């Protein structure tokens, strides 16, 4: 069997506002549009990867929050209605997604061997979190690739960013190992915002863009700093500064997805492609691609 590979890694945030404003047929509410900068960013990401062949998508979403280890979807198909518990006015999405259970089990087993607490989720009534659904839709609305869906272990809440990083670096390492051993070509997605301080009020028309901006200048500065590191191939600095970033920008990196992503990519030292940046109800969101396929060793 040929060795598997990660063909690309992406930071792919999940604000339901993007799906709402895009008006896909699976979503019940309809918007006048909005957040175009980010929706265009996703368009550029999809275009960038349109010629790349891959077998599966591996995604870690901060909205499947588990406090007892890391969990993996363990059934081949999930279909239901996803209603966002926070923005139910924006996101009521009928989903039908396939899971690469074999690859999920391989990552699970390797993580278990590495000493991480893990569990396969095999309850057929389980509703997939809206973060996974949103990122899955915005990244590939055809839903024609099987996914591996990994929960967000909330070790940041229990211990510290440093402990979270240790665990997510290890999870990323074993994820990579499992992918290479699987013989499959895979895209890995971290579904999280950067700075993550929300407004707690909403304008009468949620997509009223005259009300949309970052919650504070300090958040903006942090987001730009992290984006600069991504664009200039300095991901080790992101790892190094993750504790300060996570705490001071109240960043959604607390869910571990971003650290996990960088670990699966072996903390890249080549430039990432920034496809878009914008704010959503005050939070900072970047759509970023690490085009691994362009950086294979000769």
């Amino acid at each position, binding site marked *: 069997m040929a060795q598997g590979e990660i063909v690309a890694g992406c930071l792919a945030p999940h604000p339901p506002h993007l799906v709402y404003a895009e008006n896909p047929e699976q979503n019940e509410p309809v918007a006048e549009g909005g957040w175009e900068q980010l929706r265009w960013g996703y368009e550029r990401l999809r275009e960038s990867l349109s010629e790349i062949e891959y077998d599966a998508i591996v995604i870690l979403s901060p909205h*499947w*929050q*588990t*406090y*007892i*280890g890391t*969990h993996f979807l363990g059934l081949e198909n999930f279909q*239901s*209605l996803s*209603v966002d*518990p*926070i*923005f*139910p*006015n924006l996101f*009521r999405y009928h989903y039908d997604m396939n899971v690469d259970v074999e690859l999920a089990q391989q990552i699970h087993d390797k993580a278990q061997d590495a000493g991480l*607490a893990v*569990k396969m*989720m*095999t*309850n057929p*009534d*389980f*509703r997939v*979190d809206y973060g996974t659904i949103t990122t899955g839709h915005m990244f590939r609305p055809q839903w024609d690739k099987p996914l591996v869906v990994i*929960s967000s272990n*909330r*070790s940041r*809440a*229990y211990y510290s960013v440093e402990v979270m990083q240790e665990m997510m670096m290890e999870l990323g390492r074993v994820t990579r190992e499992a992918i290479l051993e699987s013989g499959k070509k895979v895209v890995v997605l971290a579904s999280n915002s950067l700075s993550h301080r*929300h*407004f*707690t*009020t*909403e*304008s*009468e028309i949620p997509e009223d863009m005259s*009300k949309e901006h970052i919650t*504070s*200048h*300090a958040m903006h*500065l942090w987001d730009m700093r992290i984006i600069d590191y991504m664009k200039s191939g300095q991901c080790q600095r992101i790892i190094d500064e993750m504790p300060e970033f996570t705490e*001071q920008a109240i960043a959604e990196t607390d869910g571990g997805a971003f650290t996990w992503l960088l670990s699966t990519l072996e903390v890249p030292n080549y430039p990432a492609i920034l496809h878009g940046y914008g704010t959503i*109800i005050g939070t900072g969101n970047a759509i970023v691609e690490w085009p691994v396929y362009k950086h294979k060793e000769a």
Partner: protein
Amino acid sequence: MSNGEIVESFVVPVHPHTVLAPEQNEGWNRLRQAYDEAAKIITDSGADLLIIYSTTWPSIIGHQLISDPNPEWVMVDHDFHELGSINYSFNIDAEFAELWNAENKARGLQSRCVNYQGFPIDVGSVVALTLLNPDNKIPAVIVSSNVYADRSETTVLAKACRDIVKKTGRKAVAITAMSLSNRMFTEHIDPKDDKIHSLKDDEWNRKILEFLGEGRLEDVGQLSRTIQQQIRVQKVVNFKPMWWLSAMNENRNNLTGNVLAYEAVHGAGCAVVNLNPTESGFGDKEYDEDNVEVFSGERGVLDSATKTQEPAQTTNGPALWEPTKAEGSVNTDSAPKPVGAYPHARRVGDLLYLSGVGPRQPGTNEIPGGPIHDQQGNPLNYDIKAQTQAVVDNISRILEEAGSSIDKVLDVTSFLVDMDRDFQGYNEVWAETLGKVGPTRTTLAIRALPTPIAVEMKVIASI
């Protein structure tokens, strides 16, 4: 106005074990039996409404209220999915939810009714309603827990609810679905090995239950921030269900409490507690926080918020100024406006020099803990700890606006208008906040400050 009232209150646990697997652990089974006992108390009370404040339904955009008259779905817990599924079909009092929602808005809160097919009712609400109201005889209403809300917002939420209970003449039961200590084991355990995660968590839980058993609900509410720091995983801002439940009971400290069970569920502290409004004779309140009636909101997108801000601007001292904007100035809407021509802070090199910071609140100009005198100069009782904490919070906001943070404070000069009365309380808050950062400090007694406040700090920090 009709004579509606809160006839019973309960604290109940949120985990699905009591519904799906009580037989797997003796403690889980005792919690289940306590749940059943609570259901009987509710039936005997003649209650006609259950009001659930659920900590497992976090919201960001204000508070949300279920208004679907008959929400139905299948609930699977994110962590404990292997225990099975819970089918639910609840009887919701949509009319009450709509009235409460409107009252919330009238009091300045962002609030929304939720009536969408398939909306995922949270695990805490599902467990509570399944066990407390098994035949769906009593209609219910469920409200979310806003992750950012602090005491004032949570208190106003409860007061709005009480208003509607009274107006509609309901006999209501107030329920908080919550854990005490919420630290679970981070690995899978055999059910027979379950216990409270740590001795420290257990001791704090027992102290909370001692208070609740004596009916001292408001005391627990006033300890909420401390409890959050000591035994809570930092998922949200503060241990807020006790604020809500206390405000639902008019912030009383003399209820009749009864702890029906206290057990561990995967390490977390879980209790079923009954609080009856009958006076027990216990518990005079030792101190009070602000008795806030409206919330001022943020971002100016709520009409009600704008309206409620206006009168407060002029109540606490001299006229307010827009901060000046000389080179290097740092100003923020998140700090109170100056009372003269100066900025909130000024940056020189890598150092930040802050103007004197008091406890007044941005937007409302209110003084947490109360002003030290009224507009005629008559002395008032006030809370130096609340004022000091508000000063520290304002300092933190200014520093964050400048790209710094509270842990970069280097030097503080503090001014107290009554050293004998206030030094101890001020010093205690200092020890819990800036004292942990470690700046140098000088504390001076002065005759007065420009606004009716008791404490002000002058700060130098690094970037």
